[in-house]
């Protein structure tokens, strides 16, 4: 499923979710319940700049006087491993983003993560391979 497919099926009545530089932001409505949406698209890595922008959006949500849930859409190839991100302390930007989501949750915004996209499919494939190996090893032990 593409991001457009996911957004269309989650928000059949329409939505105001936009993507810029592979960062997702906006809102939609599910059964008359407003839902904030943030995330990362395009199987792109998350670096300092992106984490900073996403954290800023979560802080905007926290400042809203509502308790609307937050949907976090994730199609990412993990953290960006560049010299610049290392120099600027990527771990702090990621920790800060996590803290903003914790604060939002504490303020009453239920937070739901939705992994989708290329890495998600490959992860599921690896899981099923591991499962077959585990079953084979277990059967071998049983036969002994």
């Amino acid at each position, binding site marked *: 499923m593409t991001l457009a497919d996911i957004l269309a099926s989650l928000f059949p009545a329409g939505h105001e979710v936009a993507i810029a530089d592979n960062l997702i932001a906006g809102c939609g409505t599910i059964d008359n319940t407003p839902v904030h949406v943030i995330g990362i698209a395009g199987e792109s890595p998350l670096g*300092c*700049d992106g984490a*900073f922008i996403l*954290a*800023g959006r979560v*802080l905007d949500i*926290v*400042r809203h006087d509502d308790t609307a849930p937050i949907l976090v859409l994730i199609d990412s190839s993990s953290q960006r491993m560049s*010299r610049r991100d290392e*120099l*600027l*302390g990527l*771990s*702090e*930007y990621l920790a*800060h983003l996590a*803290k*903003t989501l*914790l*604060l939002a949750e*504490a303020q009453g915004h239920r937070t739901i993560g939705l992994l989708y996209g290329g890495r998600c499919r490959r992860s599921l494939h690896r899981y099923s391979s591991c499962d077959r190996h585990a079953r084979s090893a277990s059967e071998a032990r049983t036969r002994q």
Partner: protein
Amino acid sequence: MGGKHRYLIGGADAFVDDDVPAFRDAAFLALAGKGRLDIDILEAEQQRLERRLHRFDKAHDAVDIWKELGVSKPAEIPGLATNDFLSRSTDKRETANDAR
């Protein structure tokens, strides 16, 4: 060098000798601190992290950043013993004191 760099840019709150007693003492101090999780402290952290992005955006390596911080003879930093490093860096480093 990574630890010294993090101490200088405000990513680490302490820098100690590479031995367990020093780590233990620093851990006790850190655990005694009162971390906050509220909108004001996270706004402060957002601004602190934004300042860092702007201030060091063009840096090619850590020495560039240390030079920008005003550390004297920045190329010597990796080779300095702990006490020498601390005396040279304490007044120049970024901190996270009002943002965590």
